[in-house]
């Protein structure tokens, strides 16, 4: 019974077709509260499409899915209130200051002025951005922008945060720091759903799934997957699976 309550994402044969093309083909999986769920796949494997359906941005062609207990067909408004999102493109406004960005996103998520104020101070403290608060985001280094971007995505304490290749273009050290933030969020009970092309990041996830040609080929913990394929790194697991893919860029 306990297990039942703690599922925050439930997908059953979720499918999206664009004409004859099946972008996402009957994927089924469950994600639990506080879990860090890695969503892997080569370019064109159908990750983005699947993620868009889960975020309520696009409606599925068939299958079932609930996010935080809300249906992806009918309750997209409720879903949007309960999720955070950070995209592969950098998702803050470059010509607003750090503080203005935080205030803006707090504002459109409907937080109260007091809440925004206290959250802003807390965030600046945690990220060590106090002295940069009134600087334009454009002037920050990429690693900081991404950390800020993540913090903004979880500003309204969503149940789930979707991260679409969040660490593109930064060095491994910065990436590691970024993952510290993810672990903290996960400790607070926020479920993290992350897509990535970096296999060192895949190792950080609790469980990972790998999509090939629109289908979810495997879903397990990184350790189990490595055992199953008799290899030492996630890199090799991914390569063995993705090699068979017919679709690509």
């Amino acid at each position, binding site marked *: 019974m306990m297990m039942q309550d703690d599922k925050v994402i439930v997908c059953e044969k979720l499918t999206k077709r664009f004409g004859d093309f099946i972008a996402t083909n009957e994927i089924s999986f469950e994600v639990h509260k506080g879990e860090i769920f890695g969503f892997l796949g080569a370019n064109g494997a159908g990750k983005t499409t699947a993620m868009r359906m889960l975020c309520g941005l696009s409606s599925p062609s068939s299958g079932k899915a609930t996010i935080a207990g809300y249906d992806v067909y009918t309750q997209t408004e409720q879903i949007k209130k309960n999720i955070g999102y950070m995209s592969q493109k950098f998702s803050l406004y470059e010509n607003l200051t750090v503080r203005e960005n935080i205030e803006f996103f707090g504002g459109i*998520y409907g937080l109260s002025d007091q809440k925004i104020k206290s959250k802003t101070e807390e965030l600046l403290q945690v990220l060590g951005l106090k002295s940069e608060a009134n600087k334009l985001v454009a002037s920050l280094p990429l690693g900081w922008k991404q950390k800020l971007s993540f913090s903004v995505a979880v500003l309204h304490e969503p149940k789930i945060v979707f991260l679409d290749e969040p660490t593109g273009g930064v060095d491994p050290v910065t990436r590691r720091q970024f993952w510290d933030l993810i672990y903290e969020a996960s400790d607070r009970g926020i479920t993290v759903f992350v897509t990535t092309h970096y296999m060192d990041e895949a190792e950080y996830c609790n469980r990972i799934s790998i999509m090939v040609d629109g289908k979810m080929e495997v879903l397990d913990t990184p350790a189990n997957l490595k055992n199953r394929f008799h290899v030492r790194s996630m890199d090799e697991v991914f390569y063995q699976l993705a090699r068979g893919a017919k679709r690509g860029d």
Partner: protein
Amino acid sequence: MKQFLAFVTKEFYHVLRDQRTLLILFGMPVAQILIFGFALTNEVKDSEILVVDYAKDNASQELLTKIGSSRYFKIRQAALNHKEILSTFRQGKIKAVVVFPVNFNEDLLHHNKAQIQVIADATDVNTANMITNYLSSIIMDYQNQVNKTLKMPYRITPEVRMLYNPQLKGAHGFVPGVMALVLMLVSVMMTAISIVREKETGTMEILLVSPFKPVLVIFAKAFPYLALSLVNVVAILLLSVFVLDLPVKGSVPLLFAESTLFIITCLALGIFISIKTETQQIAMLISLMGMLLPTMMFSGFLFPIENMPVPLQIISNIVPSKWFYIIVKSIMIKGLGISMLWKETLILLGMTVFLLMVSLKSFKIRLQ
């Protein structure tokens, strides 16, 4: 509502921090009004003309003073022969030459007719026409004055009155034109670019994933440009009243209401363009080619629509600025009220509703 406010605040930050945007927003109307008002004038003011007076009698002197006292001409006098006249034309300093023959007064008195030669530089056809027209009318005027003392059985003199614009000021036509142009540019181009920019930078996705309603995203993006466009209307009107001496004859509130309607038409167009395009460059090109050019060509502001071939006249009807131009001209210059302008207003309103519906519809389709 609080969410909407947060969004609008953010939009204003964007606009106020981008110097290029600010320059287009506020520099352009001022520059256009000043350029059209003072540089690109099609009036003939203080044209230099050369008078060659071989007569030097009463009549020629009287006529000369008459010409000189009009504000159109500056007179230089010199006694030159035909060849010398041609060479002064070549120097390009003078626009026309008036030659009084010897015995001008004598001929008038004894033969009841005399000739004056007017030679104009027709490299610029319009100016040449205008100068000769002005000169002939001054000469006619003088002739009538002289004729009063004579007996002549029938005489018909047309009394021309230039209605609404007695001084034939060029500003009357172009202030409404500039208004249509500037509002088009600000509302269509800026709105389209600002929405497409969010698509390009990826922030649009973030907004669509947020609980903020997609339709509200569009409205919140358009709203600041509505406000800024209204500021532009105020700026243009102030410039036209205080710098160009062109008062608003009709009702100012009506003018603002009509302007708001036109701005919304433009915003709807801008939103439509932004939904259909993916990059800022393309959005800008379409706005410029698709909106600005037709506004210049078909609003009646630079080229009279009545003189166009019929197919073009028909096309001009679908250009919103044409109707707005008619409305503004009628309110500002003729002082007409809504009772005379309901037809144009209704057409503009229809276009606005149509465009808004089309853009919102295509926006929803995109979301799928």
